[in-house]
Each structure stands twice: as C-alpha cells, then as structure tokens.
C-alpha cells in the first residue's frame, strides 16, 4: 500500500519536472516571431504586400487640400477638419503628423524587407524575378517616401536646407537628426538608380512600380530641386509614352476605367480606405469640407474638369446644394473608392512647362500649358503670352490648380513657387470661401508663414532628442 503511494508521488514529481520547460518556452501563435517570419521569397512577397499597402499618397491631398484655397467649410461640418482648415497646425495636428508617421512607417517596413531579403537566396529563375521586382519596388517606394517627406518638412529645397532624416536601415532605438535637402536628394537618387537595376523594363502595370515610375519621380524631384534641364528631358520622355487623354478618357480615368495618361496609380480595392472620406461622410456624401467657390468659379466654360473637380450629387446621386469633391467618385459600384493617381502625363506636361519657363523659354512654356487646355476643352485655342517668369509661373500654377486639384499638389505647389509669386494662400472673401457666414474667418496664409513647412510630430520629439523642430513651431 505504502509503495503504491510512493510511486504515485514519484509520478507526480516526474510529470512536473518533465514539463517545466513546456510552461515557459512558449511561442506566440497569432503572430510570428520576426526571426522566422521571412525565410523564403514567398514570405518576402507577403512583406511586399504590406509595404505597398503602407504607401499612402492619400496623405498628400488629405492634408494639403484642406489647408489650401481649394476648399471651404462644408454644409455638413460638425467640427471636422476645422482646425487644419483654419491653419491651427501644431506638433499635435493629427493629419499633418500622418505625413511623417505614414512615410516613416513605410520606410521602416521597406528597410525590414530589404534586411530580410539579404538572407534569402532565390531558388530558381521565377523566384529570382520576383525577388528582383520586390527589391526594385522597395527602393523605388523608399525614394518617393523620402521625396514626400522632404517636400513637406523642408522650408525650401536648396541643397543646404535642413530636411528630414534619410533612413536606409531598420531604426528601433536610434535617434536620428535631420539631414540636409542635398543629402536626402542624394539618397533618393541612389535608391532610384538601384531600383532601376531591379525593375524589369517590360513591367507596364501602372499599379506597380515600372521604369516610367522611376523616371516620373526623377522628373518631379528635378523640378523641386531646380534641375530644369533634367526635368525637361525626363518629362519629355514620359510625354512621348503617355499622351494626354481626350475628354471622355479624362472622365473615365477618374472612374478608374481609362489609363491613357496614367503613369502610376496606387490601386485601391474593396477594403481599402475611401478617398472621398477626406472631405465627405461616405455613407451620405454630406460634405464637411467642400470645393472652394473660387476654384469652382475659375473653371473655364466647356472645360471637362468642371465634371471631375466637383459635383452636387450626394452618395445616392441626389442633387443638392453642396460643391463636393468629385475626383474620387467611386468605381466598380463602390462609392468614393478610387485608385490614387500619383503620376499622370499632364503633370509631366506642366513640369516641362515650368522647367521651360524657369530656363527662359516662356513661349515653349505657354505652348505646353495650352496643350492641356486644348485637351480639356476639346478645342484648339491660342497659347497665352507670358511677359515674365512670374507671369508664366502664375499661369502654370493656375493650370496646375485646375488640372491636379485634390491630387496632392496644391499645398506644395504654392509653397515652392511663393519665392516667385510672393503669394501664400488667399481665400476669397468675395466668394464667401472665408469670412461672413463661411464658417471660417481665416483668409490669408502669408507667403512667408512658417506653416508652409510641417512641424515635427510631438511624438517624434518625445522619442528623439536629436531632431530639431521646424522653425516657427517652438
């Protein structure tokens, strides 16, 4: 009897000592420890899917349009976005911070995939092709993320100006200082060159990274940094490959059914955010932010852009009195769900025009601008005559405002030309975009205002002792 009891206790002790490690060496099951997450090219594909979805060009228009003169307070505004619209911008302004956080989250995810890729060897030609395409897309997206950051966080784009940290490794606890514009530009160019080596020249899907995407980034960067001859050369190349759309194609483009002049667009499918949500309650189509009366008023008669810029139809296509943004009307039966057009040939035309104007070719610039007007009105008109660079820039800016409305350009365009035009944002009191009963009394953001450059987010300052706040926000 006693023996049996001893054996029982012995057994219990044995069970316990046997199983002690099983209680403490436990791996997560709903997620994967990073060490074992990326082991094959297939894993890298999953990483790339995440990287690409982290790329959110929506941030550019989401913030940039609301602080611009393209918008006014909407009829259904219950306080939404009112602070940004009134230029109350601080280190805690959520939407401004998203530009920083979103792009660095993207860059971090890219750097993690690149680091993981170093340890993975493709097993065959197919895998090699996939592997190369992933590396190419990573480098290309790292370039455009830095370009967007540089555009928003540098007071100007001279080589010596303080810009953002250029990051090509996985940051965890490091606290990085700002780099100069020149250093960031060097990094972007290097990334683009690396990307070019990996991207298959035959890749022509406008929703993925193509060689033309790389060219387009280079063209836009060249314009920003004042490398006008490069801007002209590269934009010409793309203009040759992507003709301007006719009126029907133009409208179809924003319905996502025509790609005539699309160089690159970020694909958006069911489950992705609705672009129209930046200005509207997407269930009803009620606007908290509407298209400014001034923008509506300057669209020439017969110009197809009146259709794509605004509409008075709500979510159920019932007409009312709101001037709501119509660049993202919806696609495939999903209201307000649209691809985000990042590079279109008309931007290349306008880059070409501006580069010409800046190099003294005012006549050439005018012809470029006119080519767009002809395409949009479906007629052939006479090119304008520019008497000065300021004259030309003002008209190009006017055309960019119409052509690229709500695509993320207006805020940066006004910012980077204010040295020539001497103008910041001036909202129209006469047209009731501000003042009176418009819902805002803030009409003018002067050309020299610090708010043309975004503040470093408070969260970054909390965790990074080496970064300096943008002047004006201290």
């Amino acid at each position, binding site marked *: 009897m006693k023996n049996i009891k001893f054996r029982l206790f012995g057994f219990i002790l044995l069970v316990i000592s046997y199983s002690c490690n099983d209680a403490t060496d436990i791996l997560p*099951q709903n997620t994967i420890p990073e060490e074992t997450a990326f082991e094959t090219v297939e894993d890298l594909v999953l990483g790339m899917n995440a990287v690409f979805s982290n790329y959110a060009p929506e941030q550019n228009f989401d913030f940039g349009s609301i602080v611009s003169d393209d918008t006014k307070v909407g009829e259904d505004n219950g306080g939404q976005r009112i602070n940004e619209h009134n230029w109350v911008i601080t280190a805690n302004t959520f939407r401004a911070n998203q530009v920083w956080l979103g792009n660095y989250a993207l860059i971090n995810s890219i750097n993690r995939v690149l680091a993981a890729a170093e340890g993975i060897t493709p097993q065959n030609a197919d895998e090699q092709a996939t592997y190369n395409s992933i590396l190419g897309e990573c480098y290309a997206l790292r370039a455009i993320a830095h370009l967007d950051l540089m555009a928003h966080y540098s007071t100007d784009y001279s080589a010596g100006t303080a810009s953002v940290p250029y990051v090509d490794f996985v940051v965890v606890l490091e606290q990085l200082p700002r780099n100069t514009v020149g250093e960031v530009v060097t990094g972007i160019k290097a990334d683009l060159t690396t990307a070019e080596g990996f991207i298959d020249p035959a890749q022509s899907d406008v929703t993925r990274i193509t060689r033309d995407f790389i060219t387009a980034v280079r063209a836009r960067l060249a314009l920003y940094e004042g490398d006008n001859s490069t801007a002209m050369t590269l934009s010409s190349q793309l203009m040759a490959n992507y003709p301007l759309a006719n009126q029907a194609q133009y409208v179809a483009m924003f319905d996502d059914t025509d790609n005539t002049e699309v160089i690159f667009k970020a694909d958006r499918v069911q489950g992705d955010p609705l672009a129209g949500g930046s200005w509207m309650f997407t269930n009803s189509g009620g606007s908290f932010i509407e298209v400014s009366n001034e923008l509506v008023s300057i669209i020439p008669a017969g110009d197809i852009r009146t259709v794509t810029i605004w509409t008075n139809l709500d979510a159920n296509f019932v007409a009312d009195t709101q001037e709501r943004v119509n660049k993202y009307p919806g696609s495939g039966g999903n209201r307000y769900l649209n691809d985000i057009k990042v590079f279109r040939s008309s931007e290349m035309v306008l880059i070409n025009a501006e580069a010409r104007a800046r190099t003294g070719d005012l006549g050439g610039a005018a012809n470029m601008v006119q080519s767009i007007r002809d395409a949009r009105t479906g007629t052939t008109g006479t090119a304008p005559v520019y008497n000065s660079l300021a004259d030309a820039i003002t008209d190009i800016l006017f055309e960019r405002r119409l052509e690229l409305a709500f695509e993320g350009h207006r805020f940066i365009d006004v910012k980077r030309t204010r040295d020539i035009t001497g103008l910041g944002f001036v909202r129209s009191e006469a047209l009731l975009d501000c003042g009176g009963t418009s819902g805002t009394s803030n009409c003018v953001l002067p050309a020299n205002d610090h708010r043309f450059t975004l503040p470093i987010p408070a969260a970054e300052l909390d965790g990074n002792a080496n970064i300096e706040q943008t002047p004006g926000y201290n």
Partner: protein
Amino acid sequence: MKLKLTWLLTLCMAFMMQFSFAQEKTVSGTVTSEADGLPLPGVNVIVKNTSRGAQTDFDGIYSINASEGEILVFSFVGMKTVEITVGANNTINLTMQEDAESLDEVVVVAYGTEKASNVTSAISVVKSESIEQVPNASLDQVLQGQAAGLNIQTSSGQPGASGTIILRGRNSVQGNIEPLFVIDGVPVNEDNFRSLNSNDIENVSVLKDASASALYGNRAAGGVIIVTTKKGKKGSGVNIQYRSLYGVSDRIDPGFDLMNAQQYLTYQRSRGLNSLSDAEISAIAAQTNTDWEELFFRQGDTNSHEVNISTGTERTTTFSSVSYFEQEGITRRSNLKRFTFRNNTSTTSSNDKFNFNTNLTLGYSKNDQSSNPGSGQLDNPFINAYIGNPALNPFNPDGSLDIFGDGTTGFANSPIVALNQSILNTDNTDELKIVGNIAASLEIFKNIRVGGSVGMDYEQTNRVQRIDPTSLRGINNDTNNPTAALIFGSQANTSFRDATFNVNSSISYSNIFNEKHSLDVSVFTEYFKEHISSYGFEAFGLDPKLPFVSAGFTSGNTTEGPATAPLYNYIPTVTATLTDGGLFSYFGVVKYDYDNKYGLQASIRRDASSRFSKTNKWGTFWSVSAKWNIHNEKFMEGNTFFNDLKLRASYGTTGNDRAAARFGSFSLVGTAAGGNTNGSTQGYQGTTGYWVTQVNNPDLKWETVVQANIGLDYSIWDRRISGSLDVYHKTTEDLFLNQPISTISGFNSINANVGEMVNKGIELSVNYDIIRNNDPRDFQWSVNGNIAYNKNEITKLVGDGLIETTRTALSEGDPFGSFYAVRWAGVNPANGSPLYLDLDGNITETYTADNRVILDKTQDPRYVGGFGTNVSYGGFALNALFSYAAEQYRYNGSLAVVEDPTLVTISNQATSILREWTQPGDMTDIPAPGFGSTRLLLTDRYIEDASFLRLRNVTLSYTVDRDVLEKTNIFTGIRIYAQGQNLLTFTKWRGFDPESNINSTFFEFPTPRTYTVGVDINF
C-alpha cells in the same frame, strides 16, 4: 485501533486498581462551563500520575475513585485544564474556563493553514456569514467594505458583472493591478465570478503584506485573496440545508433632475429652435411628457434556490450543493441565470498519515447584456435615460410600446432605437466554468510529509450578438454589413475558452523540539499552464424567420450590384486565435516559533514566466517576517487588560509578470495591417501581408513590488475589543511604462521598465462587543469597522515627468490618476462667459489647454472601508454593513451632456440649465449658451467628488428556537430574513451611481438597490 486499545487498557487497569488501594473513595461531581453555565459532557478526568480515568456524562456528571491527597486533572478541548487535590469532601463540582490559547483560530495562509497566534503576516479574514445569501452574483462585489485595505468598485450593475479590486493601492500603471484569486488551491480568473456560488464559501483570506503573499511570488504583486469552500465536519452525520431567497431590484435615485416636456420645449424656443406658442407647448406637454428613466429602468426580480448536504464520519467528510440563481437587471435585456454544482470531499487514512481532498464546482450561466452600456452609442439605454426627448411619445395609440418611432437610427429617434434594440436584438453569453482541485499528502517518515495537487480553472463562453433584420438597426443597415448590402441583419458568434492548469508538489518537515521550538520547513514546485483559444464568425443578411441558426444566413456566394462588377456583400468574417502561457516555479518557506512568543518566517520563490522567455525569464522573490506575542511574556502575567497583543513586521518582494504584454519580449510579425496610416486593413491590391506589429525590448523584465509592513493584533478587555493595525510602504520597482521612441521606427513607444511608484498606508480594524451576555439568546450587541488610508505617488517617470492620459496625467511626485485640468472659475456675471484660472491663478475668459494643472484630486480613493453592527435578541438578529470610499473623484461625462447648450437640439437637458446666464448681473454657475459647449474642454467643471457612504447590506432575521424545532423531528434549524442592499447612498456625486472603477464616467449601468426575503431550513 490505537484508541480502542488504550481504552481497554485503561478499563482493565482501573478494574485492577480498585483492589489494590483500600483507602480509595468515590469522588463525584458536575462539570459546567463558565461561559454559559451549561453542563459539559465528555470532560476527561484522570488521577494524576495514575492511569485511572473517567469522563463526564451528558449531564456533566462524573465519578472516579481516588484517595485523599491525590490530584484530579480535568481536561477538555477548548478549556483550561484544571488540577484539584482530593480532600475530605467526596463531591467536587467544577466550573471550567475557556482557554484563550486553544481559542486560537486557524487561518488559511499561502499553501496551508496556521494558528492565528503564529501568523507573522498581515492577513484579513472574511467569514462565510458575511458572504452567504447576499443577492449579488459576483463574489468580489460581496467583499466590498469587509476587509481593511480592499477597494472594490464596479462600473456595472449588470447581474454577474465583476468589479475591480485594488488592495493597498494601485501598484501598476499598465499591468494587472488586481490580487491573485486562489480558490481551494487553484488560481482563477479574478475578473469572472458570475458562474460561482458565493454560498459555497467557508472563508476568504486576504493576504496583504509581502510575507503573506510572497510565496505566490510571480502573481502576487497585487496581493492574494484565498477562497476556501465549505467542507463537512468530522463526526457530524448528515446535514441537509435548503435555502431560498426572492427579491426585487430597482434603481437608485440620481442626484439631478431633467427637464419635462413643457420645460424642454420652452427652453428650445428660447434658443430659437422652435416657434411654438405657449398654448401649443402646453398642449403637447399635456399629451406627452415622457419620463424616459421610467421606461429604461425596470424592477428586476431575483430568486435563488439551493440545497446543500454535508456529511461527516470520523474519517471522511463531504459537502455538496446544487443551486439555481436568477437575477434580472434593472434595465430590459439584462439578466443572469445560473446553475451551480459543488462537491467537496476530504478523507483521512485511519493512521492519520494520508490526507486526500477533492474540490469540484461546475457552474453554467446565461448572461443577457443590455446594449453598449458606458458608451455614446444611441442604443445604450442609460444614455437615453438622460437625453431622451420628453416630448417624444413612446406609445402607440392603443397604448402599446412604439418601438419604431420615425423608423431611423438618428438622434431624434434615439430612445426608441434603444427600446427597439432591447426588445428585438440579442447579446448574450453562455458560460461553463469548472474549478476543480485534487490534493493529497502523505506522511512518509515521522514529521515529513509529501503533498501534491492538481487544479484546473476552465472557462468556456459562447457569445451571440444578433441584429435582427426587422429591428431599427437592421432596417437601416446600421450594422457591420457592407453598406451596399440589400439583405439586412447580422449575427456574430464568438466562442472563447480559457483552460488553466496548476500542478503543485511539496515536501515538508514539521517538528517541535523541547516542547518550545516549533519548526516547519516546506519546499514546493509549481507548474502553471494556460491555454486560451477563441473562434467565431459574423454572418450577414439574416432571415428573420430562422433566428440564430445558419439556415437563416445569406450565402457568401450571393452577389449584388452590376453583373460586370458583382459585389459580394455576405461573405461571413471568421476569427480564430490561440494563445498559451505558463509559469514554472520552485519555492520554499521556513517557519520557526519559540514558545508561542517569538516567530520567524522566511520564504523564497524563483519563477520563470513565458512572458519573458526571451529576456529575463527568471525572477526571484522573497520575504522575511517576525512576530512577537507580547501577551505571552512573563511581564504580562497578571495583566487583565490585554488578552492578546501581537507585534508583526515583514519585508519582502513580489512580482508582476502580467505588466508586460504576453509576448513583449518578441518582435512580432502579423497579418493584421499595422503600418497603414490610411486605414487599410489589408495588403496591397486586396492581398495578405506581413506587418511588424511589435518591436521587442531586449531588457524587458518583471515588475517588482517591495513591501514593508508593521502590524499589531490586539484583543483587550476580556476580548470585548479586538482588531489589527497595520502600516505599510510598498514600492513598485521597474514599473512598466511606454517609453517614447523615435517614430521613424514605425512605433512611438516601447514597453520598458522605467518607472517607480510608491503606496503607503495605514489600516485599522476594530470589533467591539458592546453588550455581551453569556446566554446566546439574551441581548447581544457588537459593532465592527475598518478603515484604510492609502497614498499613492509616482516617484519616477520617463521624459519630462508628465504623461498625459486624457483628463488625468501621470506626474512625477503625484498620485496615479491625478486629474490634469484647467481650473473652472465659474461664470462671469457681466457677460455669461465661462471663467478659468490660468497657471498663476488669475481669472481669464480664455480657455487654453496650456493652463492645465495637476489637481489634488485622484481617481482612486484615499480612504476606503466599512463598518457595521450586529444586534440580536432571542431569535432576532439585525446585521448592517456600511461601506465607504472617500476622496475619490471622477469626471461626470454623463451630466456634462445634459448641461451642454450645443446639444439641446438632440438631447434633453438638466433643469440646472434653466438657471443659465441670461442678462448682466446674473450670478449663476451655468454660462450663457452663446459660449458654446465646455464639455469637451479639459477643465475641472465636471470633475466631481465621488466619495460615498453606502448602506451596503442590512439584514433582519429570525431564527426559530431549537426546542420548538426538536418537537417537529424534521427540522434542526429555520432562519427567515429580510435583506436590503444599497438601501441608502450618501454622496455629492450627481448621477445614478458614485461607484465606479474608471476615472471618467459616461452612461454606465448603475448599481441597483435590492430588497430580498429568504429562508434557510436545516434538516
């Protein structure tokens, strides 16, 4: 066997002795008890230094042979042993006194029991009498006010809802703050008691200081609460008890008034929101003046039935119970139904060397929950009790309830939406809970015992949330359905299982040397494993005729929209998760006691936790403590004032592994979209992706609580007054906080052991028998009370020493949960503008968040406790328990809504709004409406004193006299009683319930007031 032999031998000897000594005579007498004067049967009487002995009979009478000069020794359990020398007299009557020493109660301590006088730690005990038949389905809430240092509050009056228990102050910012709950040796979920029957509980030990709890090392940072369930009594035969109670609950009156229809319409007119004439308003108000409070609150019924049977033979005892408990909440669609079953057995081998215990309880409960309490959702009944438009008619012309109103789910229809939701839609949870333990121990050598136990806490819940397609939410497609879906309604089922296993083995040595040195040494190992899994689905497009079953779900293959771009609107969503966790520990304790005067205890525990499996896996926790029973000292002899006086001191550490995220030591990659700032939930082009969801901190380690305690246990004046006094100092070292890191990492903070927090406090408990009569049926009156003071301070933070947490802030040098707000300075009589104080204390009309200051107001109370009284006479007894919490503050987000002039179009308003500023010179506390809403500003306008004093429980009972019952030959005891819970609440708080475990309230489910009557019948 041994006993029988001894008896035979004694008899035999006695028989022989009679012939040996001729001078012997027969001495006889009666032994009575001093306390009640009743005869004492079974007293042992022996002649000293002989083997002659006898026992008193049922009438306390004995007789024994002894000669003059011999000494008779009278001994009886629980009485002082008396020696009397036989003289000339042949009759010796004796009155025996109770022995204080053996009155010593047995206290349940960590991994065992101990005599109260030997305990070196701070432990409070709550006994079954204060727990039983309280009409509250959650054990933790029943404990409120019953032990010094326990702060138990809840934010939900939902039957079965668990509260938050904080023992001796909050000791973690991000981690678990609640004590470890151990039921019969099994660690259980401390947030779920709805499926357990509190009547099964024998006693509850609250282990407060490091010495008491360090043996539970890894999980004891918040203290430990040990629950012991009932056992049968040895030799008690079969006892059967039937218990039943019935009661009703209703709401507690709030401390504010809402406008009636007349007032609301008139006020709306003054704000230009209607242009009705006085006559029209009167006409509407005469027709419709809805008191939404009446419609959203109801009287809820409670009833319970229980049968328990306990048996006891010399070697084996059992306790079994079955119970049914049903309680309706005080709002529609809120109730708990519960069935519980318990079987406890205890067996000792005939040689006393082997002990075997089993404890098993099964509970099955069904919990219907009201929709979204505590939220701003318009189907929350408690928001509508405030904001419901009094001019809105909730009745059809035929007098039935109109649950569709204008057919929308908008603000104008919001109270109707809530009614509709509570009648047509479903949110219920079925739960099966099993707590079981098998323990055995065997004395393998003299004084050496080995033991083992295996325990399990198993919880399985199935939750069903269903939006009926014919309900307002269904009709308006106001669900998780895709917006384009044409078939309405949705149903989500979630199954959740948490199975934990605890295996403990021990070896212990226990001995007494030279009658004075008592030594206990025990060594343990413990293995703990937790398996959590969940799975569920949400289906869309329901057929109202086939509720709850998949036959009524629309197929996922169904398409809608244009054939060219078909929309799949009914693809169900599915989830499945798996999580394991575990601990492995070995630990030991040494207890030494000298002559019941001096005691020392030391313990050490090494724990490995799966939560730190990649970093600092092992933690070591220890404690030392000592006691001094001053009353047993020579110099206290002859002292009649102190009966007991014990000084205790302890110091030690405990750990908290639940402060860290479960896999905080890993960098994790998941398929849930983590990095997308645009809000996408999927990979590019609708794919699956790998996101980094967590970056690890390579230095992550245990949060450690270091605690020092000095205590005094006393009883004086013939034990009329007794109690304890404790002073403690508790430091949480390596406190977990989110340390900010550069956002370039893709994250803005990392979990790190960077802070420190201190809790200091004093606890006092007193019992006083004001009137004590020897006859228990005579008048008896006692009072008791406890008070605990705790001061919390954050002594180390990261960064600049201030971390904002909405309305409160963590601030170095201030308590946790200190409110951080701009000081409200009333209303400017000149223009009706709100006034604020700036940082320097100057009055300003300008609000800026930069003027926030740390206020001397915190969410956790400084003082908590309870007090009560017990009065009895004859069969009648009156017991009352008050509980209180003082110096606690909360943001009254609910009242702020009905004092917000910008919400008057969509929400009824408090009558206080009627005194708003209207013209220069008005002295008022309500600003002019033109200044807009101040509700969302970070001011202290609605930070209110939520201190309360509550008559938590009062019971009047009558116990039928035993003599009467004996004649029935059926009953051995009958007790009937009437009981009230939360009958009175004294508070300055303006709302339905000052009690809450959160710092900002917003339309929570208030605690009800309950009246019950019940009966206990013993057979």
